[in-house]
C-alpha cells in the first residue's frame, strides 16, 4: 500500500534566487532519505513560490521494507570457550544485536573464523520515519544567506518559517520545529485568498492552491508569465526577451499578471541599452521593440495576480520609471558636454590598481598595445584599434557609468558617446565591445579593431595582476583572471592569424614601466604560460574534444591558439582511420627513445652507415618541407599524412638498426636523426598522450 506525501514549508517572502537551489537540495535529500530507509516511492517533485517550498511524493509505501542482514561479530576464539560455551563477549554481541546467543553462527572469513548474527529488523511505519526526519529537513537546506528570527534561533532559514504542512495520504504528520507545529493548513495568495486552507488529503494540495490563486509550479508560472508578457506587448510591438529576468520575475510572484504602461517618447533619445536597463533593474519590467528595431515608449510590468484598480498600479510604476528615465537623461545630457578625449585626462586621478597605477597610464599602454596587436593580426585596422584603445576607459568617469545601476553598461556607453562625438563606426564599436567576451560562451568582438582592443585590455590586466602576485588560487579568483584569459583564447581563436600567447604576453609586459611589475620575470612568464595553457585546454574541452586529445594537442605549441584548434580538429578526423594506430606506434618509437637521449645535435650524413637509417633520413628530408608547409597553412590532416608516410621507413629503421650502437659517434648521430623527426612530429601533437580507442 502506498500514499501521496506532501510537506510544505511556508515562509515569509523567500528571495527569488534562493528558491530553485533550495528545491534541488530538498529533492536530493528526500531521495537519499527514501533510499537509506528502504522506502519505495513514485515520482518525487519539488515546487516552490516566494511563500513556500514543497516536497510532493507520489506512491510512497506505508511501511519500510523489513531488513535481514548478517552482522559480523567477534572472532570465534573470543566468542566461545574451549568447551564451546559462549563467552561474555558473545553474550554481549548477541544482546546488542537483539538475537538469541544460541542463534549465532560461526563462519570462515579471510581473517579467520568469526561469529555472525542474523539480524531481522521489521520495517517501521513510514509516517513514523517521516515524523522523525521531516523536522530536520529545513535546517539542512543551505542558502546564500540565512537568518534567525523571533527568539533568535538556533534554526536558520532564508526567511522566517511561518507554517508547516505535512500530510501522508489522509494522515496528518505530527511534529514540531522549534515553536512551530506541523499541521494540515496551508495558505493561499497573501491578499487574494488570505484565509488558511484545510487539507484532508495530500493529493488535494496543488488543486487547492490553484483555487486560492497560487500557481504552485515554477515552470508553469514562468510559462504563464511569458504568455502574459507577450500578450501585453503585442499591441505595441514585440517583447524584448530576457530569459534571466523572466526566471527572476516568475519567482517573485505566486500568480503572474502582466500589463503594459507607457513613458514619454521623448526618453527614446536615450540609448536602447539604458532604457532596457532602467526598466529591468528598477522595475523588473520588460521593454518592447518595434518592427524597425527601435524601442516603443512602453514597459511591460507585472503584479502578483492583482488585476483590480490597474490604473493606479500602472501609474505607480510609470511614475518610478519616469523618474529613473529622467535621471538617466540628465546623466546622458551632462555627459555629452564633455568629450571622451577630455575625459581621458580625468583618468589621471583614477587609480586602476594601487600598485599598478592610474587608468590614464593604463590607456596609454592599451593604445600602444592595441596598435602592436593590430599590426600582427589586422594591419588594416591599426588606426581604429589604437584610437579606440586610447578612448576606451573614458566612459568610466562619465556620470552614467558612475551610477551604480548603469556600471554594467561600461564600454557600451563609451561606444555610444564615441559615436555621438564623431568617432567612426569601427572605433565606437570597438569601444563598445572591448569587454567581450563577458562570460563563457559570450560573443567575441565583432570587428578586427574590437578584437585588438579587447585583447590588449585583457592581456594588460593579466600581466599586471600576475606581475604583482595577484594570482588566482583554487576557487579564489577575485579579479576574474580566468575569465579574462579564456577571453584572450577565444578572441585569438576567432581572429586566427599569427600571434602567439608568448609574444602577446611579452609585448604587454614591455609596456609596463620598469619596476612596476615586481614578480620575478622568468617565474612571471612561466606562470602566465601555464595559466594560458590551462585555459586553452579548458576551451578545447568545451569545444567537445576529448581529454586525451586535448592533452596531446596542448603539450606542444600551446601558445598558438587558433592553430591548436585546427590541430585538434585534424587529429579528431585522422584518429578514426584504420592505420592511425600503426602511425602512432611508429611515432612513439621515435619519441620514446629520445627521453633517454639527452641533447640533440645536427645529423652528420657521413656517419649514416646502414641502409635503413640512410633511407629514413632521405625520406625524412623529403617529407619535412611538405609537413612544415602544410602546418604553416593550417592543413594539419595533410601534414599528418605526410608525416605518416615515414611509417614504413621508421619501422624498418628500428627493425634493422641498433640505435644504441657501441661507437658513441654513431649512437649520437642516430639519436640526432630521431630528435629531428621528433621535433617535426611535435608540430602536430604529442601522440603518446592519446588513449587507445576500440
Amino acid at each position, binding site marked *: 500500500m502506498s500514499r501521496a506525501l506532501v510537506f510544505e514549508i511556508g515562509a515569509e517572502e523567500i528571495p527569488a534566487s534562493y528558491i530553485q537551489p533550495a528545491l534541488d537540495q530538498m529533492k536530493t535529500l528526500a531521495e537519499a532519505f527514501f533510499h537509506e530507509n528502504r522506502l519505495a516511492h513514485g515520482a518525487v517533485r519539488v515546487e516552490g513560490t516566494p511563500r513556500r517550498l514543497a516536497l510532493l511524493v507520489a506512491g510512497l509505501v506505508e511501511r519500510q521494507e523489513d531488513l535481514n542482514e548478517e552482522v559480523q561479530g567477534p572472532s570465534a576464539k573470543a566468542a566461545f570457550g574451549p568447551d564451546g560455551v559462549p563467552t561474555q563477549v558473545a553474550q554481549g554481541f548477541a544482546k546488542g544485536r537483539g538475537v538469541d546467543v544460541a542463534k549465532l553462527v560461526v563462519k570462515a572469513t579471510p581473517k579467520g573464523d568469526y561469529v555472525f548474527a542474523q539480524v531481522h529488523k521489521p520495517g517501521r511505519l513510514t509516517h513514523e520515519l517521516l515524523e522523525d526526519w521531516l523536522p530536520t529537513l529545513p535546517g539542512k537546506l543551505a542558502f546564500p544567506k540565512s537568518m534567525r528570527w523571533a527568539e*533568535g534561533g538556533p534554526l536558520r532559514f532564508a526567511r522566517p518559517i511561518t507554517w508547516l504542512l505535512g500530510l501522508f495520504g489522509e494522515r496528518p504528520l505530527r511534529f514540531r520545529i522549534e515553536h512551530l507545529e506541523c499541521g494540515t493548513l496551508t495558505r493561499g495568495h497573501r491578499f487574494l485568498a488570505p484565509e488558511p486552507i484545510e487539507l484532508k488529503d495530500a493529493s488535494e494540495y496543488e488543486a487547492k492552491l490553484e483555487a486560492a490563486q497560487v500557481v504552485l509550479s515554477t515552470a508553469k508560472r514562468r510559462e504563464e508569465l511569458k504568455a502574459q508578457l507577450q500578450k501585453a506587448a503585442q499591441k505595441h510591438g514585440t517583447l524584448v526577451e530576457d530569459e534571466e529576468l523572466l526566471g527572476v520575475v516568475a519567482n517573485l510572484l505566486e500568480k503572474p499578471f502582466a500589463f503594459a504602461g507607457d513613458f514619454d517618447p521623448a526618453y527614446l533619445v536615450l540609448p536602447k541599452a539604458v532604457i532596457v536597463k532602467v526598466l529591468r533593474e528598477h522595475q523588473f519590467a520588460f521593454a518592447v521593440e518595434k518592427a524597425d528595431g527601435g524601442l516603443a515608449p512602453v514597459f511591460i510590468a507585472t503584479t502578483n495576480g492583482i488585476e483590480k484598480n490597474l490604473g493606479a498600479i500602472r501609474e505607480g510604476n510609470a511614475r518610478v520609471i519616469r523618474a529613473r528615465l529622467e535621471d538617466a537623461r540628465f546623466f546622458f545630457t551632462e555627459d555629452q558636454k564633455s568629450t571622451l578625449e577630455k575625459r581621458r585626462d580625468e583618468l589621471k586621478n583614477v587609480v586602476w590598481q594601487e600598485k599598478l597605477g592610474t587608468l590614464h597610464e593604463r590607456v596609454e599602454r592599451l593604445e600602444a598595445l592595441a596598435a602592436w596587436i593590430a599590426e600582427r593580426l589586422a594591419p588594416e585596422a591599426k588606426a581604429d584599434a589604437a584610437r579606440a584603445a586610447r578612448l576606451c576607459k573614458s566612459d568610466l568617469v562619465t556620470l552614467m557609468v558612475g551610477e551604480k545601476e548603469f556600471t554594467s553598461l561600461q564600454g557600451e556607453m563609451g561606444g555610444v558617446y564615441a559615436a555621438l562625438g564623431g568617432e567612426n563606426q569601427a572605433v565606437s564599436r570597438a569601444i563598445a565591445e572591448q569587454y567581450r567576451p563577458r562570460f563563457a560562451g559570450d560573443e567575441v568582438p565583432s570587428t578586427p579593431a574590437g578584437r585588438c582592443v579587447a585583447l590588449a585590455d585583457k592581456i594588460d590586466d593579466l600581466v599586471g595582476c600576475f606581475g604583482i602576485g595577484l594570482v588566482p588560487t583554487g576557487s579564489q579568483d577575485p579579479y576574474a583572471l580566468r575569465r579574462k584569459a579564456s577571453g584572450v583564447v577565444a578572441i585569438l581563436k576567432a581572429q586566427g592569424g599569427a600571434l602567439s600567447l608568448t609574444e602577446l604576453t611579452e609585448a604587454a609586459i614591455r609596456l609596463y614601466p620598469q619596476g612596476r611589475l615586481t614578480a620575478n620575470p622568468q617565474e612571471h612568464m612561466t606562470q602566465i604560460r601555464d595559466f594560458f595553457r590551462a585555459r586553452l585546454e579548458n576551451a578545447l574541452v568545451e569545444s567537445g574534444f576529448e581529454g586525451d586529445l586535448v592533452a596531446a594537442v596542448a603539450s606542444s605549441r600551446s601558445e598558438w591558439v587558433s592553430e591548436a584548434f585546427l590541430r585538434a580538429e585534424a587529429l579528431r578526423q585522422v584518429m578514426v582511420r584504420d592505420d592511425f594506430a600503426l602511425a602512432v606506434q611508429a611515432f612513439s618509437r621515435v619519441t620514446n627513445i629520445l627521453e633517454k637521449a639527452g641533447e640533440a645535435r645536427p645529423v652528420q650524413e657521413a656517419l649514416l652507415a646502414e641502409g635503413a637509417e640512410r633511407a629514413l633520413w632521405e625520406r625524412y628530408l623529403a617529407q619535412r618541407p611538405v609537413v612544415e608547409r602544410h602546418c604553416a597553412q593550417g592543413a594539419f590532416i595533410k601534414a599528418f599524412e605526410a608525416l605518416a608516410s615515414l611509417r614504413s621507413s621508421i619501422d624498418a629503421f628500428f627493425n634493422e638498426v641498433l640505435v644504441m650502437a657501441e661507437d658513441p659517434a654513431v649512437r649520437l648521430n642516430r639519436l640526432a636523426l630521431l630528435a629531428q623527426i621528433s621535433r617535426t612530429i611535435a608540430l602536430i601533437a604529442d601522440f603518446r598522450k592519446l588513449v587507445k580507442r576500440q
Partner: protein
Amino acid sequence: MSTRSSLKTKPKSACSFQEIILTLQRFWAERGCVIGQPYDIEKGAGTFNPNTFLRSLGPEPWSAAYVEPSRRPRDGRYGENPNRTQMFHQFQVLLKPAPVDIMDIYLESLAALGIDAREHDIRFLEDDWESPTLGASGLGWQVWLDGLEVTQFTYFQQVGGVELKPISGEITYGLERLAMYLQKVDSFWEMEYGSGVGYAEFFRENERQFSRYNFEAADTAVLFKDFENHEREAKRLIEAGLLLPAYDFVIKASHAFNLLDARGAISVTERTGYIGRVRGLARRTAVAYLKLREEQGHPMLQSGEAEA
C-alpha cells in the same frame, strides 16, 4: 483671536505629510509601541537613534516608533531633483522581539493609510541591509507599493558587531516616498506638508542651503578636527562608563565623516579606514552597554522572564 479659529478650520488632507505621520503614530501606539521623538543629533538614518541601536541589544523587550529626520549629505541636489535630497524623513518602528505576525501588522498599517492590498501591488523584494559604520546587518525586504519602494523591512541579525538574541524587526517607512505616492505627485516639491503648508515651502530652502554647505562651504579642516575630537571623546566616555554620552559622540563622528565624504575630502582608500574607526567605537559602545544592562539586572525584563 482669529488666528486660533483659523487654525481650527484649516481643511485637512487625509494624505498630507503630517497626516501620514499622525496616522502611523496612532497606529503603532495602538499596537503597543512607545512613540519616541527624533534624537537631537544629526544622523544618516533612524537606526542611529539610540532607541534602535542600543535598545535592539540584549534580551529586554522593546517596541518603539518615531519619526527621524535623516541626513545624507552626498544625496543633496540643491533642491533641484524631484526626489533626491540631503535630508528626508523616516518613520522608524522597532519591535523586539519581532512578533510572528509582524508582516501582517505592517500591512494593516498600510491599510490604515487607505491602501487596500487587494487593489494594489504590494511586494516584498529581497533587500538585505548593512551598516558598515554601525557594524549592523540584517535580512529583509524593500516593500514595493505599485512599483515604488516605500518601506525597508529588516530582521536585525547583528548590531555593533554583536549577534542579537532575540531578533528585532525594523520597519522604516520612507515618508516622502509614501506621501508622494498617496498624493499622486511626481516630486517632493509638489507635496503638501499639512495645514496648508507645502513641502517645498517647508524644506526647499533648507535643501539649497545645506547642499551648498555640504558640497562647497563646509570647512574640511574643522570637520577633520571634529572627527578626531568626537572619536577621542567617545573613547574617553566609554572608559568612564558614560555610555549614552559616548554613543552621542559616535553618531557625531559618523556625521562628520559623511560631511567630509560629501566634500570629497576622503579618498576611496581612506574611506574604509574611517568607517572602520566609527565601527570600532560603535562596537565598544554596544558591548559596554550590554554589560551595563546586565549589571542592572535587565530592568525591562518582566519578573519571571528574567534570564536563567
